[in-house]
């Protein structure tokens, strides 16, 4: 009979996950302030500019505001606070 071995599990200990709810959605975008967040990845500025162009053409009633974090890949609480202060919604983009 083949010898049976008992070995250790090599993995660490993950944290408990606590459920969080999404923000309530808007009934419509018309008349709302939408932040376009350029996450500063290569060429994301060009992408967000094109996204702005789409809204201007197709949903002109949406108020658009562009914003950037202070650094790429670093949380920017001040930027988030600015969006939460007068923004109704946000789009974040885009990587690679």
């Amino acid at each position, binding site marked *: 009979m*083949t*010898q*049976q*071995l*008992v*070995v*250790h*599990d*090599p*993995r*660490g*200990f*993950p*944290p*408990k*996950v*606590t*459920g*969080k*709810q*999404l*923000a*309530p*959605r*808007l*009934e*419509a*975008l018309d008349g709302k302030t*939408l*932040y376009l967040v350029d996450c500063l*990845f*290569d*060429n*994301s500025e*060009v*992408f967000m*500019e*094109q*996204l702005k*162009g*789409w809204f201007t053409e*197709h*949903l002109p009633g949406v108020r658009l505001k562009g914003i950037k974090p202070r650094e790429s*890949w*670093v*949380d920017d609480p001040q930027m*988030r606070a600015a*969006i*939460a202060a007068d*923004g*109704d*919604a*946000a*789009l*974040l*983009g*885009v*990587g*690679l």
Partner: protein
Amino acid sequence: MALEEACVPTVAIHTHVFARLVRSVARANGMPTTRQAFVPQPVVDRSAAQLRAYIDGNDPISKRPFMQEIVEGLTRPLDDADRHGVTFARETPRLLDAAAADELHAQFLENHWTDNLPIVLPTEERVAQMLAGTSRKPNEVVGRMRPTFFREYWEFTVEKVAVNAVMAGARPEYLPVILAHAATGQTARSSSTNSFSVTSVVNGPIAKQIGMGDGIGALGPYNHANATIGRAYNLLSQNLQGGSVPGDTYMGTLGNGYNYSSTFAEAEDRSPWQPLHVGHGFTSEDSVVSVFFGGWYTHAGYGPRETWQEKFRHSLAAAEHYLPPLLIMDPIVARGFVDLGFDTSDSLARWLAENSWVTARE
């Protein structure tokens, strides 16, 4: 997700290759139904017209119009899943079910718990022997680690570090050095597309006590302690942080050979300069591990010949500004710089800093 918590409805836009990763991140943050939209990869180097075509086209994951995903993501009413998220606990058992050695090797390989090279199975006996290499208690928490900043931290104990040290083929006397690596909290298996790695340097008496290599081939596979300590650091990084699996917890585009092992001791006896750790406030009798994050490209061969200044300028100009370069020298080369007037390593570092400026555009 932080914006959602601040009551701002949000859609995050990603390239399609990140679909699996961003969904697992959303789930691990308790918000698995986070609204996402995808465009094809790449965005880098695409023209404005090409990017506009992405926007006018279909989301490559959902196959629906991209802008429909965006608009609906902001306006589609919440359902029960959106309102509650998910709450769950994940358990890591101490031991696996008993099995034959071949089956266990296959299990470790299939679960991405190895570096795809053969490992030493971490039996209870071997782990107990490894733990004899430290005075720390097995259940003492060493620290936390994660593959990138937007993922959750996983926690680990002395015993879990010892398990990975056994797998790497390390000896018990290496464990204090491996624990020091783990205690940095710096992963050697970053998930960045840049394929980063970590190179580490060991200073102080312990390097000689455990037989680390600081001479010929110190950075290569020629010394048991160097090779297995570096391998242990990489294995524990991937296993204790929650994985390093391509497409999920690893996105390095090219990968990196330094992710197998990249650890060595400084040749303190032969260097003309003070040891690295002494320059950072430790005494020569302290044993210290220093880790250097980066390692995604290597320039080599710049001794103090007539053209050393030009070569250094070119080399440093090519280095990314956000990660300081790590210079590693043979002691013979370091003595050559002393002959040129650099009586300390700091004086050479200052020269390099002052002569490697580039324009903002560069």
